[in-house]
């Protein structure tokens, strides 16, 4: 098939960007979206032109490196998958696709489709952990965990930190990402002692990074490749309220 791409090209964080049009022919339906970009990049490289920069690593939908907007939708048209798992059979011959980086104040564009998501790391550093030193852990089966809680904690822990939720949100909020970690640890007995402090600290960091506020659009859940539920946001808000009331700070 032949696909026409409008790709956001921006040579550096400071440079002004613009869309550039590329016609890619010989696209096979079995190619992934990123393999199609590889083919285009090989052609550009052979001509000595700069290839399109995009983050990627595992290409299995688990590392969370990849992600950009395809025709205005984070990770493209298919439900619950990342761009690296999106195959060209989702499109048809002659389609025109617009590829654009995540747009959010807290995710500055570095080059082309690549953005800086280090704000997510700083949110985790603010409290997304259980404070347990290596060697100080009790015997693993000493604390049984209700299966329902363990399963729900797993659902939240499945977040891959890709940032699509932020990109899709009209307010560029990071609520889905943050609430997933707050819920994952808060649901487990191991995470209980720090539950209040964790929610307060992570949300404070989230605000500091310049992410917007949640006004319940639900766009985040719609694009999340791991199907993280907005119910975790409600859960975090409850945690936060309780923590604020209890807070002695």
């Amino acid at each position, binding site marked *: 098939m032949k696909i026409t791409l409008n790709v956001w090209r921006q040579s*550096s964080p400071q440079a002004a960007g613009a869309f550039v049009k590329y016609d890619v022919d010989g696209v096979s339906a*079995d190619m992934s979206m990123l393999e199609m970009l590889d083919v285009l990049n090989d052609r550009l490289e052979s001509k*000595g032109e700069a290839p399109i920069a995009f983050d990627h690593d595992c290409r299995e939908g688990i590392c*969370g*490196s990849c992600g950009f907007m395809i025709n205005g939708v984070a990770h493209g048209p298919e439900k619950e998958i990342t761009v690296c798992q999106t195959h060209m059979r989702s499109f048809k011959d002659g389609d025109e696709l617009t590829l654009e980086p995540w747009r959010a104040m807290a995710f500055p564009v570095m080059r082309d489709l690549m953005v800086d998501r280090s704000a997510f790391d700083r949110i*985790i550093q603010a*409290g997304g952990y259980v404070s347990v030193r290596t060697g100080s*852990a009790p015997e693993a089966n000493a604390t049984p965990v209700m299966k329902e809680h363990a399963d729900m904690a797993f659902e939240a822990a499945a977040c891959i*930190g890709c940032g699509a939720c932020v990109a899709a949100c009209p307010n560029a909020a990071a609520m889905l990402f943050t609430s997933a970690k707050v819920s994952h640890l808060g649901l487990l007995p191991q995470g209980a002692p720090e539950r209040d402090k964790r929610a307060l600290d992570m949300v404070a960091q989230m605000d500091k990074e310049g992410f917007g506020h949640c006004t319940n659009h639900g766009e985040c859940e719609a694009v999340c490749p791991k199907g993280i539920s907005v119910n975790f946001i409600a859960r975090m808000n409850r945690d936060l309220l309780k923590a604020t009331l209890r807070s002695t700070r």
Partner: protein
Amino acid sequence: MTLDGKCPSGPIETAWDTHRFNMKLVNPANRRKYNVLVVGTGLAGAACAATLGELGFNVQAFCYQDSARRAHSIAAQGGINAAKNYQNDGDSVHRLFYDTVKGGDYRSREANVHRLAQISVNIIDQAVAQGVPFAREYGGLLDNRSFGGAQVARTFYARGQTGQQLLLGAYSALSRQVHAGTVKLHTRTEMLDLVVIDGRARGIITRNLATGALESWIGDAVVLATGGYGNVFFLSTNAMGCNVTATYKAYKKGALFANPCYTQIHPTCIPVSGGYQSKLTLMSESLRNDGRVWVPKSAADATKDPSTLPEDQRDYYLERRYPSFGNLVPRDVASRNAKTVCDEGRGVGHEVDGQRRAVYLDFRDAIQRVGKSTIEARYGNLFHMYTKITGENPYESPMRIYPAIHYTMGGLWVDYNLMSNIEGLFVLGEANFSDHGANRLGASALMQGLADGYFVAPPTISDYLARVGWGSKITAEHEGFKAALGETNDRIQKLLNIKGKRPVDSFHRELGNVMWDKCGMSRTKEGLEEALKRIPEIRAEFWENVNVPGENKGVNQSLERAGRVADFLEFGELMCLDALERAESCGGHFREESQTEDGEALRDDVNFCHTAAWEFKGVETAPTLHKEALTFEHVKLTQRSYK
């Protein structure tokens, strides 16, 4: 050079405890005076950096991804072994030790493996305390499954995302130390050289992948936890960025590279669909519990719709050749047989470069026997993944699978303390060679990475630091740093100045094809000799005709890839040489010249019961081979059989 593994003497059961007692400690007040550089934030690196930080050392941690959470460990699916014996099915530290030595086909060090089995139980405790959501039973206790043909259920898992959950656990511990200020994290930073001064590892040279800046980092010890080199084959189940650069550069600075030819091939991956293919996706081995592997009896039927082929025109070759194990033969046996039938022209599926390289994995009979819903409950997510990638429905037509490179057992040589022959250079996780011998058991890599990172390296690094002290002052102005920085810069400029006609990937693919054909599932003297002639030719053309656009400023992904491919182009030769030298078959290394009458791998314990450790002598000069003899006092050497 004599290779001393420094394994403690005395009973193996208490060796690690005794050894730990004999190690020196650094006074808590002095720990922050030591700088440790940890390269890699996968399971091994993140666990080590976090633990050293907790102890109060000053740690600098590096990874090439944009976040420490994205290391390739994230992709591990199946699970992690530990000798907890929660199932009361006869498991023990000794049994895990025994299985690992035997599984490694008697090419690992007993003392290391025993320690690994011992520590395995602490890893689970640690992970659970961090909040890793392992699968649980209704009573709230941890669940286990049996994995990769093990006779006991000792594998802990978190659905199909065990690696992800364990890595996020280690990443959270690391993040906590970043917050505490003991660890400084440098993401999007690639190590390009090791600095050795007066025989000691004293630092690294890195390139900032966002700006292109080259930097020198000074340390009292350097830890490499940079993962495996499977991407030398271009197509593998590894992440795209996995590379040999860090360990290969250390090799060029004098660290010995051990058993590079030991690679593991996974039999159930989704086959190549076209020349544009960038990586291969693993499908869990558990599929072989119910799927039947076959190809048409006649090559003429390769393109026919499989459902139209009657029973008597199908060849269930694994069931035919291995009546007792059938479709459940070990990974390497299943893989080699798939290659054989495809070599005979009976492969199925897409034709790529004139060949069909896939076999059927058929669930028709299983669906008839137990029903579609049972199969769906067992493998629903895998079938879904298969459909997503191939666009085909495995409930209706058989899956197509083919083997792919999955794991590399070889790595930098280390002693019992995980220190290489270069003083102060520690190597952890898949990057070292230490525990899996010639073949790794399923669910044991995660265990080893975390054992190394949380429990082994922190005390051995402390011991080393206590012995060397912090007195020696070195600055980035030292000749050793200036020279390494200069060389790194020259190499980058050289790559950028070629401006030839071929893209970087085309060389990587070409190398990968040679490696896969000649140094893949089965190897011969002639094939390896051919590869050893061919690789330098590809390398020479690379340095004349590659086109790396742009300059060393800002993000330049072509330059990143070019540097990694340049190293693979040298390393591939070392692998082939090692494979040629090891004229026996063992574990994942199959030399066609060394097989039993039934076509099974035949070890040669008289001539090859050793670790082969290679010393760099120059890019165009043959390396020197050093041997570390292996002795087996606790597990008796036997030949395996699956007939």
